């Protein structure tokens, strides 16, 4: 009897402890929600995902980086002219720009490591994904170089590659520009060969269209070349590449609406601009008005322009009701603050125009533009005026303006905000703006100024103003146009308009190989390509 119990106990115990083999321990060690090996194609999508907020109207871009950091320094957004106007409302938005770029770069470095470990046959098969990830990464890197100057690049991501903690130093931005321009040249040619294929399954930018990938690589290369071509050590290189891409038979670049490079829209997940809608929720019209206010510099240059109404609402009450008013940087902080806060019987109505609610704020159908035909047309017009290539500069200019108008008009027309749900701004009636009318308007612009470059630069600045404001800032810094009034402030760190942003604390506070930049001198170090 007792023996039976003993046997039962012993059996139970044996059973219990026999489950504890080495194998059982090892099986349970690995996180079941994670995958032990990553594939190159899925890593490419991972790279695109890591950096996709650079190219979409994300919360960070719209209510942070663009409106608070970049907008005030290139006056594409109206801001109270207070002492911190050039420092940005909250510095972490510049932190995020830096970090998002590094994050994209890290994922790319992991992809590159995995790619380099492949055998030759697999390398060949995955090459387009490697290249695709590279093009996208370079584009994010370029945007970050333009904001900060030197950034860590070559030593980035060593933890995931070697398992060791290596604090990367900053790499020289000029060297990076040069490398990127060269690399994109190689990739553009390989893409154009027609031998490479990226699956639409992995590709939320070009949907597997290799023609568009070719144009993407070439257009970004052109953007970089134009940037460095005005002055500085890479001027000659920039000019050569412009000629290579736009001269003679040239290279395929984005020319029409159909080959525009932008994020795919799928109405769900990250490709549904739900977060955008979330911002609007609970904040009645007029909330966060300082992040939506118009700039006078913009409004002045949009007179008679169909984009004026598409971009800005009229002031909806108070003494300036019905007008389109932007922040005048000549005004004192007190005046701009008072106008921002507004006046009126029922509530304080902001006396500045706000961004058109249908086009931007209450619109889930905004787009994540990467390369638009307007940009290329303006570069082409510039190259012709600068006699780098031959062609009809005016025709290119008119095309640029027309494409820009159509782009803003489409966002407004396609807005998910119905007139009924909009608090104040109805959709804009564009029926009078036929193609011919827009062309006539653009021709007038071209003809009215003998300084053709100024006209072009002003339009680049206007075109990018809200959809990708860093390109507007780049244009001002490269060309000096449009010439704007910048007030001097009482800020101790950044009293005048800066030439670049400083390295965020998120990096220098934890990376011993990157110095904290002393302000304000660092703010005023001109980038090598700047005027």
């Amino acid at each position: 009897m007792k023996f039976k119990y003993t046997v039962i106990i012993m059996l139970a115990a044996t059973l219990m402890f026999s489950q504890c083999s080495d194998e059982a321990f090892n099986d349970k060690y690995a996180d079941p929600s994670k995958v032990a090996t990553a594939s190159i194609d899925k890593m490419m999508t991972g790279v695109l995902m890591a950096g996709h907020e650079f190219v979409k109207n994300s919360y960070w871009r719209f209510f942070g980086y663009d409106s608070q950091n970049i907008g005030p320094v290139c006056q594409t957004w109206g801001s109270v002219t207070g002492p911190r106007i050039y420092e940005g409302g909250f510095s972490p938005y510049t932190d995020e720009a830096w970090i998002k770029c590094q994050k994209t770069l890290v994922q790319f470095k992991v992809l590159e490591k995995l790619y380099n470990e492949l055998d030759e046959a697999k390398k060949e098969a995955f090459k387009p994904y490697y290249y695709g990830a590279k093009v996208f990464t370079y584009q994010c890197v370029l945007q970050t170089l333009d904001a900060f100057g030197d950034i860590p690049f070559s030593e980035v991501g060593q933890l995931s590659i070697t398992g060791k903690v290596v604090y990367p130093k900053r790499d020289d931005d000029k060297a990076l520009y040069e490398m990127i321009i060269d690399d994109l040249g190689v990739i553009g040619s390989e893409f154009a060969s027609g031998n490479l294929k990226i699956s639409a399954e992995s590709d939320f930018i070009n949907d597997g269209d290799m023609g568009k990938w070719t144009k993407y690589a070439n257009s970004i290369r052109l953007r970089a070349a134009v940037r460095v071509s005005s002055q500085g050590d890479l001027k000659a290189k920039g000019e050569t590449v412009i000629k290579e891409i736009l001269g003679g038979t040239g290279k395929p670049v984005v020319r029409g609406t159909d080959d525009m490079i932008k994020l795919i829209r799928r109405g769900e997940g990250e490709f549904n601009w739900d977060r955008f809608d979330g911002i609007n929720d609970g904040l009645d019209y007029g909330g966060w008005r300082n992040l939506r206010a118009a700039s006078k510099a913009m409004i002045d240059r949009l007179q008679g322009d169909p984009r004026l109404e598409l971009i800005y609402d009229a002031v909806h009450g108070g003494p300036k009701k019905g007008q389109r008013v932007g922040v005048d940087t000549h005004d004192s902080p007190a005046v701009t603050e008072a106008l921002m806060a507004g006046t009126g019987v029922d509530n304080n109505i902001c006396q500045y125009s706000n961004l058109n609610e249908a086009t931007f704020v209450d619109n889930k159908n905004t787009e994540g533009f990467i390369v638009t035909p307007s940009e290329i047309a303006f570069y082409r017009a510039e190259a012709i005026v600068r006699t780098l290539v031959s062609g009809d500069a005016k025709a290119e200019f008119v095309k640029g303006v027309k494409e820009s108008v159509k782009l803003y008009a489409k966002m407004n027309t396609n807005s998910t905000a119905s007139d009924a749900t909009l608090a104040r701004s109805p959709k804009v009636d564009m029926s009078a703006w036929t193609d011919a009318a827009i062309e006539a308007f653009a021709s007038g612009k071209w003809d009215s100024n003998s300084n053709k470059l100024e006209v072009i630069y002003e339009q680049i600045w206007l075109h990018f103003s809200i959809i990708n404001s860093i390109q507007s800032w780049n244009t001002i810094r490269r060309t000096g146009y449009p010439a704007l009034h910048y007030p001097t402030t009482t800020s101790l760190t950044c009293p005048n308009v800066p030439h670049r942003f400083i390295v965020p604390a998120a990096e220098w506070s934890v990376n011993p190989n990157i110095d904290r930049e002393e302000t304000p001198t660092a703010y005023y170090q001109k980038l090598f390509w700047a005027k």
Partner: protein
Amino acid sequence: MRQKFKLFSGNMLHRLTMTVIMCGCSVFLYAQGNITGKVTDGAGAPLTGASVVVKGTTNGVVTDANGNYSITVSDNSATLEISFIGYLSQDAAVGGRTVINISLEEETTSLGEVVVTALGIKKDTRKVGYAVSTIDSKDLVKVGAPNFASALYGKAAGVRIQAAPGGNTSAVSMTVRGLSSITGNNQPLLVVDGVPVRNGNANNGEDENKTSRGWDNDRIQGNGIIDINPEDVESISILKGASATALYGSEAANGVILVTSKRNRGQGVKVDFNATLTGNFVAYLPQVQTEYGPGAKTLDRGAYELVSGGFVQRSQDGKIYKSVYKDDAVNFGPKYDGSEVLYWDGKVRKYEAITNSPWEDVFRAGFNQNYNIAIAHGGERSNNRFSYIYVDDTPNQINSSYAKHNFNLVGNIKILKNLNIDYTANYIRQNIHNRPYHINWMLTSYGGIAGSFDDMALLQDMTVTSMGYRNVTKGSLTLTPNESFAYNIPFSAAMNNYLWPILADNQDEINNRLISSVAPSWDIVEGLTLRGRVSTDLTSENIERKRATVKPILLYPTEPEGEYDMQKKSYEIYYGDLMLMFDRNLTEQIALTANIGLQARNESVRGTRLRTEGGLSTENWFHINASRRTPRYWQDKMDLLKTAAFATLGVSYANALYLEGTIRREKTSTLSKGNNTYVYPSVNASWIYTETMQNILPEWYNYGKLRLSYGVVGNAPDAYAANVAYDQNMNAGFIYNQLPSSYGNENIRPETKYEYELGLESRFFKNRLGFEVSYYNNRIVDQILNTSLPQSVGATSMLMNVGELKNYGVELTLNGTPIQTTDFRWDLRFNYAFNRNEVVKLNDGTDFMRNEGPDEGGNGMVHVRSVVGRPMGDIYTYIPQTLNGRDVVADDGSAYIINKSDRVCVGNVMPDAIGGIGSTLSYKALALDFLFDFRLGGKIMSWGHKYSMVMGTNPESLNHRDEAHGGLAYYFLHNNVTYDNIRQAQHSDAQGPNGETILHDGIVLDGVNAAGQENTKIVPVSSYYQNMYQWGNGDMRHGIFDNSYMKLREVSLSYQLPASIYSKIGCRNLSVSVFGRNLFYVFKNMPMLDAEATDGTSWIRQSWINGTSATTRTVGLSLRASF
């Protein structure tokens, strides 16, 4: 061996035969002899329900209400066994007597004679060479605490309890001897009847139940410890030091809480009934000033408001009305004057204070009912206690309810003389409807801090329209335009994010938990026992979240909102151990105990969650099929395996000297292969010097023990934390891999704690005075820190064994009975503990670690650091710039210039000392019991207080508002409202030189300007509040307070009714009591809120208050009856 089996078998047969014969005998030999008597306690009071059994038989009776019994015995040689719960059993040989009166000795007077130690091994306290705090059952149930953990406040030296507000369903955090980990788990291991069960952390911001609305998890979660019902607990042992807990290895660094369930003692049938009714009333809520109503800060006033004193004008139906509020909820408007103003409901009402506590309208009085019936039966071969507990609670939060059923069976069966099986089964079922919602939107959101003119009751009524949608402001699209707000309500955030979800949304949870164990033990030969144990702790959770449709689909087809979310989760622990125990006297003086054993535990989590995406396609249809877009899903999967082999060896000499060593070798699946085996040794010794020096010490020195121990324990990383692998996710159909931003570490080791401890225990004057003091000193090396890295390195953080901590401290417990007469007794209990913590080392090259900080915008105006050479938890913030020791005032005079170049330490969040003072006064059948607990030192951050200054609702914000509150008079030149135009005036001036309005809310900040001259600039005080108390800016010290307090935690008055009243109904014992919990603070340094208004179980989350639920004050009534 063979022979032995035979012998045992024969023995068994014999025993069986005897039983049969005896049963027969008891029939045939009826009325051989009758014995009567009375059973009393040590003070002579009758004990009702004591069991009197003829030893070795099933013949037994229980005493009546007067303690009397009458029993028939078969022969004179019989022995009576008298037992009663809470008292030491006694045997009395009949020896021809017919009257046998017995006085039972209370177990507590010899408290701790036997303690439960690691692995459920019961030990004579004398043998224990380390500190163990024991809390008896009756100290857990006096004041109807919802769970045993929250009944431990102030009762054990060095044990800090922090119960999250919200009642039955909110987590309780316990910390033992300070903290052992900077970022890891600090909760003790919970062991019920020898079995490790689920406890865990909650409300630390990383919960998976994170929901999209709000800043954090919106509802207050619970943890495993709160499921254990105090009514079923017989005693709690708290093992504190590393030597005490070493047998639990890598889970023991934070101490171990051993819970022993109530068992039946004695024979016969006993029934206990208990009903406890408690009322919970919200308490310690923010009070608001009632002198000034809503309106803009002076500097934000337009021309009209300046002249009107802060009123604004609004139009309604073509008429212009005087009104209040500007565009936010700021309360710097005009003084209440009883004039008529247009309110946001579109009606005109008198401008006067509506309330001084707007929160009160948001909560209701809570009512908790707790019924418990326990049936115990003792027989010769089996002892069982079954109890059923039913809890029904009406929480303080409106629209929520709670019910709990708890079935508990504890017993044993003696299969053979030397083969016994213990078993327990505890089944808990909870129905939770709408857990308490965080109130951060009302406490720390500018869009939700209500003032005295904010009619919360009205807002509550208007939040949900008659058609069931969320209300809107006039002009917005709605199906019920007549119900809309006349103008934008100033606290829309509170409505959208607090009132709407608690009124319209529903969350239903059904939790089932079964904790069960079977433990056979076999006494192989005398002194040698084999014991096995198999146990399970199974939890299954079903959660449904139903977010109501916010807007009519008819009007808002693309954004209907609403959500359905369902979650099923199981958490299973399977545990088994096997132990061979040897306990024998080798000689008369020397005794030996030795144990060897094996242990294994398998934990697994399986969970699925489905959620609609993009709103509900059909209004308020709560099913996954209602999803407008592809529903989202999550999977939760975790497996963990831990095995260990252990051995202990103890030697004693002359009942005075004891020495014990233990060793445990452990293997875990959470660490990588080749790196997953660790050894944890310990040693302890005690010397009962009163035994050795009997002749030297005075007679009144009853007991004295010196103890010394040393041990090594660990704190293992979470499952999968070490594993390095790729994330794979899908977004809108695109599948992608990424390297996670937090990197694991294949070489990670458990944090290891080395601790030594020294203790002295003494009792004097027949145990009427006693004390226990312990000193401990520990070092915790290999702290696992999720070390921050710049993103450029490859990940934003990585697990590293880089830190080192040190703690030392003293725990003191005093017990005394200053007065003891037949009728009156006064007991006193006091405990006090302090712990000093020091961060010894962090990652190489870093001298501080930035811990998570409260949401403070910008680049983190304030954060908590663990600094090398300092206790963890230093608060760092920017403070004003100084010049010659004076604060520097900004040019416009409205603020101090904050020096943002360096943060300075403005305090530390660790308490200096904690403790409790308790006392019982009993007179005859009446007993008054109370307990204070205290915390000394340690800061807490409470931004609600600070923000309410910016909002002008804080009573302190009245300072300088007018002449009576110390304000200065001034005017704006030409009524042009800018700092530059401020000119000094006299309060008596009717107007300025150009007819300007005279204002009386001026302040001149004490300080100097940048040039070092005395500041003389007058500014409106609201500007100063705006600049110095605001979110993400200003002087953060305005929101940082010393969190010392002493609270009257428990008080109860109980009365044992005279037996004459109830004896006729067969009742043996009947007592009633009234009690209170959290009644008041003796002192508290933090203003506005409860000192314990935090809900996280992590120390860092306990360092700031960011809007948990309301805290409460409780009063109750309890009735206990035994049959």
